[in-house]
């Protein structure tokens, strides 16, 4: 199974406060939708036009940062969308956990669309993680918890419980 782009694109559009209409996925799995007055084809292109339209600070003006953000968007829509298949879950969580061991956000030192998109894509998977896994992928947990505290990012999604007391007390024995 692949996550339907409809949900995460709509959430991202709401967060960016840009109206999108007619999100469709055709037989060849190409996604199209209407942003403003334009029809846009391809998920990454849709995301980029949303960013342009919103003039949001979630994008970047630095070429290297832009490139890194794009790489994460690709990672999100090509790879992370398969997180509901159990054989992929571990790989995705440990990829992210490794990166987030030394980083607060995925790109640069600020919140970008890379974090927000991944948050929407991973939402259900993280919500159904066991405490043991939340502890095992502690850096992902910390990153996710930080994102969901921002109410405009979280929107109406449930707050995932990380019960940090429980987590810290059980990790302290490890450290």
């Amino acid at each position, binding site marked *: 199974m692949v996550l339907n782009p409809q949900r995460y694109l709509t959430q991202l559009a709401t967060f960016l406060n840009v109206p999108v209409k007619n999100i469709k996925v055709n037989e060849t799995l190409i996604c199209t939708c209407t942003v403003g007055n334009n029809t846009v084809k391809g998920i990454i292109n849709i995301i980029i036009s949303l960013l342009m339209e919103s003039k949001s600070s979630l994008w970047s*003006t630095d070429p290297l940062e832009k490139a890194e953000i794009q790489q994460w968007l690709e990672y999100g829509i090509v790879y992370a969308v398969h997180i509901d298949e159990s054989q992929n879950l571990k790989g995705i969580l440990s990829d992210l956990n490794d990166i987030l061991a030394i*980083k607060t956000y995925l790109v640069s030192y600020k919140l970008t669309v890379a974090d927000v998109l991944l948050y929407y894509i991973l939402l259900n998977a993280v919500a159904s993680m066991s405490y043991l896994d939340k502890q095992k992928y502690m850096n992902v947990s910390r990153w996710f*918890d930080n994102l969901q505290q921002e109410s405009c990012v979280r929107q109406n999604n449930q707050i995932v419980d990380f019960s940090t007391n429980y987590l810290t007390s059980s990790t302290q024995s490890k450290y």
Partner: protein
Amino acid sequence: MAAGTLYTYPDNFRAAKALIAAQYAKANVKVAPNFVFGETNKSKEFLKKFPGGKVPAFESNDGKYLQDSNAIAYFVANEQLRGRNEYDTAQILQWIGFAEGEVLPAACAWVFPVLGIIKNSAGAQEAFQRAKDDLRVALTVLNSHLLTHTYLVGERITLADIVMACNLLNPYKYTLEPDYRKPFANVNRWFTTLINQPEVKAVLGDVVLCSAALSAPPQEGKGKKKEEKKEKKQPQPKKETPKKEKEPEEELDAADAALAAEPKSRDPFDLMPKGTFNMDDFKRCYSNEDESKSIPYFWEKFDPENYSIWYGEYKYPEELSKVFMSCNLITGMFQRLDKMRKHAFASVCLFGEDNNSTISGIWVWRGQDLAFPLSPDWQIDYESYNWKKLDPNTDETKKLVGDYFSWTGTDKDGRKFNQGKIFK
């Protein structure tokens, strides 16, 4: 909002707390000009306002006086920095207490002898050894807190972070060498995030983390003072950074304006002479025939007057981890350049394997200049590549074109061809 004057000597990490808080709150806090440490703050006039005679000291425009860096920072801060509720504020005070009581004494005892600020006596030497251990204890506490928290209090930047980071500033700059700080990955992550916030950078400039610990000079240590001075010069680029950030924004606006103004359908290549090279015929030949035929065909028909050949190389190969990500980067770019297809052709190749790969390609299009600036639709990706125009008459170009069109050869460092994508 608080506005006023801060008395301090330059590059004082305590004064930085107040100046950073003022950046977040957009409070108008000026540093007193002509301040001379040891003179100004010992003058009668100063002591009347600030009996302690210490700096930083703050005088608000409406005649309020404050001493102590943390109190000043609190006064000039905003709601976000002071905490959203009483419990958050209490936790902020708790961490400020920790920063002053546990972190700073150890930090000073270690850093000051190294910088030659205090003389390195036998007593200092002993304190110096103890300081390293004390700081390790404090950092361990911080490290486990920051494993589960992005920032110290309330999942956002507060005064607690600012005060803690400023108290750790000199250790990070001068004494916490890579081996010492390695076990504190979460503190390092948090500290690097903070010093790279625009509000913090505006005050501290670029902070360079210590690469090898300076050790305390045996006696007086004048030499080290010079080194300190050198390092202090580093904040200079800070004046230029905001400007740089502005320019691309303006460019973007210009591009957006052009996008809005221009009728969507116009093909910028239509304005250029057609020449004799028929792109469609070549593409048909390339698709249907073996490269042993299509490459000679290309050279036979190529019209150097009206078309140009370019080499484009992805600038950030270190960032490419997974091969599948790289391939998507190429196909994504092709998709975004859709409207360029009619008068352009490219073969872009990925060399190497996971975690060690590069992307480069050979492009052909109508006209003699870089094509991407012609349309705002084409500008998403091209900045991520270095572009070099090739001279069609050299053997070098002939070889490059042959290699890329036939998907053979290696990149310039000898990485093997992995996958190729054709833009046609």
